C-alpha cells in the first residue's frame, strides 16, 4: 500500500502533495487497478495532518477518475494502465539510469542534469527514422 509523506519545505499544499504521490505511484506501476488507498484515519495517524486534507486529495483523485470510493469499504484505484506501458517501464528506466551514470561521469551536477532533461523534454530533437 502507498505510504504518503509530506515535504514541509516544498511550498506545495499538503493535499496536492498527496495527489501527486498517488499519480506518480500509478504512473510507475506501484499502484494498480483494484489497489486500495490507505483510509483517511490511517493517513492522518501516520503523517499527522487534518483529515479534511486527505479527503480533499481523495476527492480530487476521484474527480480525475483515478480512484473511486466505495462507501464503508475504502478508496480504490479504478483507472488502468496498459500492460504494454508497464512492461516497457523497466527497460526505459534502466536506460535512463545508465544515461544518468554517463552524465555524472561526464561531470554534470544534479542541477545541470535536471536543466538538460527539461530542455530536451521541451524541445526534443527530431527522431531519425
Amino acid at each position: 500500500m502507498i505510504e504518503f509523506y509530506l515535504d514541509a519545505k516544498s511550498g506545495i499544499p499538503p493535499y496536492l502533495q498527496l495527489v501527486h504521490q498517488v499519480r506518480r505511484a500509478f504512473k510507475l506501476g506501484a499502484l494498480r487497478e483494484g489497489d486500495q488507498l490507505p483510509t483517511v484515519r490511517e493517513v492522518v495517524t501516520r503523517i499527522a495532518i487534518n483529515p479534511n486534507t486527505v479527503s480533499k486529495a481523495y476527492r480530487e483523485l476521484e474527480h480525475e477518475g483515478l480512484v473511486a470510493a466505495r462507501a464503508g469499504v475504502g478508496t480504490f484505484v479504478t483507472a488502468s494502465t496498459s500492460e504494454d506501458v508497464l512492461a516497457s517501464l523497466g527497460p526505459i528506466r534502466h536506460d535512463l539510469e545508465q544515461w544518468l551514470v554517463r552524465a555524472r561521469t561526464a561531470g554534470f551536477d544534479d542541477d545541470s542534469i535536471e536543466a538538460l532533461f527539461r530542455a530536451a523534454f521541451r524541445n526534443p530533437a527530431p527522431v531519425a527514422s
Partner: protein
Amino acid sequence: MSVAALETVGLGKRYLRRWALEDCTLRIPRGHVVGLVGPNGAGKSTLLNLAAGLLAPTAGSIVVLGEEPARDAAQRAQLSLTIALAKRPELLLLDEPVSSLDPLARREFLGLLMSTVAGNDVSIVLSSHLVNDIERVCDYLIVLVDSASGWPERSTSCWRATIDSSALARRTTSRRRTRR
C-alpha cells in the same frame, strides 16, 4: 506473583495543606476491568493522574506495569490525551499541547489526535505559539494579536485560513486589520 497493572504503597498526594489522596495501598492485577468509584473529591482523578505520570506523589510509591509512571514529556502528553479521549469528549481544549515535545513526538501526538478526529464528531481548539507546529492539522487558524496592549477591539484580529499552507502565507502577507 506476576507484574501488576497498577500497584501503590502508602500513596499520597497533597495540594498545599489538603490531601487529595492519602495512604492508598492497592494492587490491581493485569487483565481486568477495574472501576474506580467514589464521590467527588475522593481522589479518583488524582490516582489516575498519578498513574499517568501527570502528578508526582507527595508520599508513598506507585508502579505501573512494573515501572515508575512515565515522566518524560512525550509519554505524559500521549497518556493525558488518551485519558481525555477516553471520555469521548465533544470538545477538547488543548493549551500548547506540543510545545514541550520534540519533532517526532509532536508528530506522533498530532497523529493520535487526528486519528480521533477522523470519523468522530469531536471539536478541538488547540493553542501554539508556533504556527508551523499545528498548521497542517488545523481546518482554521485564528490569530490573536496584541491582547496585552489593552485595546480590546484590537485583541481579536482573527481571520480564517484554509488548511492550504500557501493560502495561509498569502493571507499573512496581505493581512490587514479591519478595525483599528
